[in-house]
C-alpha cells in the first residue's frame, strides 16, 4: 500500500512521539488511529474534554454534533469555549481543535441530533461517543447505532457529583442502551436543573476519549480479547471521598425491542418516523406504553 494513510510524516512522528512509545499502541496503533473516525455527539461538559484528547491523539477524522450556543454558565465545565460566549459551540470547537491539531479532519454538524438526521449522521463513523444530556437523545443514539449494524458506542453521563461510563454494543453480544434501560424514566434531572461540578463531568469525558483511543488503536487480536471481557459500567462518585466501581452488566437481551430477536424498532419503522422519541421520553410510547 502506498497511500499516505498508511504512513506517518516526520511532523506526525514528532507530535505523537510520546504515545508512539507505548507498547500496546506503537506505530501500528497510531496508524490505526489515523485511519479511524469517531463522532462526538454533544460538545458540552463531556464532549469538550473528549474532543480535546481525541484530536490531540491524532484520530484521523473527528465529527462534532451540537446545535447549542455557548453560554457563560457553560464555561466552568466546557473549558474549550473561553471567549466564545454567544457563538455556536461547534464553531468554538472548530477554532480550538484546529489550533490544537491541524492534521485532524474535523467534520462539523451544527444541529441537534434528530430521528430525521441520525442515520445519515452516524453512518460514516467507526465509533460513536454519546456526550449528550437528555434521555431522548441517549435512546435515539443507541437505537441508531443498533440499526447501523451495531456500531460501537461509548456513552458517559454526569450529574452533580457522580458519573458513569459504558461501552455499549461491544462486539456481537454487548447490550444496547435499551437492553439496560428498557423503559424510559420520567422527570429526569439535567445539569442545568441540578448542577454538576466541572471536573466531575470533565473526568468522565476524558475517560471517554481514553476508551475511544484504546478501541480505535487496538489490533484485531486485542479487540477480540476486550470483547471477551463482557460489558462493564464504571460508576464514579466524587463526594465525600472518591469512589470508583466497575459493574458487570447483563449481555444483549433476546427480548430487546431494538437489538433483540423480534425487534419492533426496525430500520423501516425508524425511517418512517414512527418511533416517537418525544412522547417516549415523556414516558408515553407510541406503540406500546409499557415497553417503548
Amino acid at each position, binding site marked *: 500500500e502506498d497511500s499516505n494513510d498508511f504512513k506517518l510524516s516526520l511532523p506526525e512522528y514528532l507530535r505523537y512521539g510520546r504515545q508512539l512509545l507505548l507498547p500496546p499502541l506503537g506505530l501500528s496503533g497510531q496508524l490505526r488511529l489515523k485511519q479511524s473516525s469517531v463522532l462526538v455527539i454533544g460538545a458540552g461538559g463531556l464532549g469538550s474534554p473528549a474532543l480535546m484528547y481525541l484530536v490531540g491523539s491524532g484520530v484521523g477524522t473527528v465529527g462534532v454534533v451540537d446545535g447549542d450556543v455557548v453560554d457563560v454558565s457553560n464555561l466552568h465545565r466546557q473549558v474549550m469555549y473561553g471567549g466564545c460566549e454567544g457563538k455556536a459551540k461547534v464553531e468554538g470547537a472548530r477554532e480550538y481543535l484546529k489550533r490544537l491539531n491541524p492534521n485532524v479532519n474535523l467534520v462539523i454538524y451544527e444541529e441537534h441530533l434528530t430521528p430525521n438526521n441520525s442515520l445519515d449522521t452516524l453512518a460514516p463513523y467507526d465509533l460513536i461517543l454519546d*456526550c449528550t444530556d437528555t434521555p431522548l437523545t441517549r435512546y435515539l443514539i443507541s437505537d441508531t447505532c443498533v440499526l447501523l449494524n451495531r456500531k460501537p458506542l461509548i456513552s458517559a453521563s454526569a450529574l452533580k457529583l457522580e458519573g458513569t461510563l459504558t461501552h455499549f454494543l461491544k462486539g456481537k453480544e454487548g447490550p444496547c442502551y435499551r437492553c439496560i434501560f428498557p423503559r424510559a*424514566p*420520567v422527570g429526569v434531572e439535567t445539569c442545568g436543573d441540578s448542577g454538576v461540578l466541572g471536573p466531575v463531568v470533565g473526568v468522565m469525558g476524558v475517560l471517554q476519549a481514553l476508551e475511544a483511543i484504546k478501541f480505535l488503536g487496538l489490533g484485531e487480536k486485542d479487540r477480540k480479547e476486550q470483547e471477551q471481557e463482557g460489558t462493564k459500567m464504571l460508576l464514579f462518585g466524587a463526594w465525600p471521598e472518591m469512589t470508583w466501581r466497575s459493574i*458487570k452488566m*447483563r449481555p444483549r437481551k433476546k427480548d430487546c425491542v431494538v437489538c433483540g430477536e423480534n425487534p419492533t424498532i426496525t430500520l423501516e419503522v425508524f425511517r418512517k418516523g414512527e418511533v416517537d422519541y418525544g412522547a417516549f421520553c415523556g414516558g408515553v410510547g407510541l406503540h406500546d406504553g409499557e415497553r417503548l
Partner: protein
Amino acid sequence: MSGSISVTLELSGGAELMFANTRLHTLEIPADLTLQSFLLYLADEKMTDKRRDLFIQGDTVRPGMLVLINDADWELEGEGEYVIQDRDVIHLISSLHGG
C-alpha cells in the same frame, strides 16, 4: 427462615434521596429473603420519601433504576428471585443523564 443476616444497602445517582439522603445502610434482615421481597420491604419499611412510585412501580423498580448485587447487574443473578446471602451488598442506582 431461620436467623437473620446482615446486608449493606448502597444508594447512588439520586436514589439516596428516597432513603434519608444516606448512601450507605447496614440492615439486619431475615435469612432466605428474595431480592424481590427485599425491595418491597425497603419500599414499605425503609423509604423515607412517601412517594412510593419513585422507587417501585408494579412489582419492580421504576424505569431508569438499576439493581446491583455485589457489583453485578441483578439480571446476571436471577433478578427478583435471587436469594440474599449474608454480607451481600445491594446497590440501587438511578441512571444519570447529564453531560
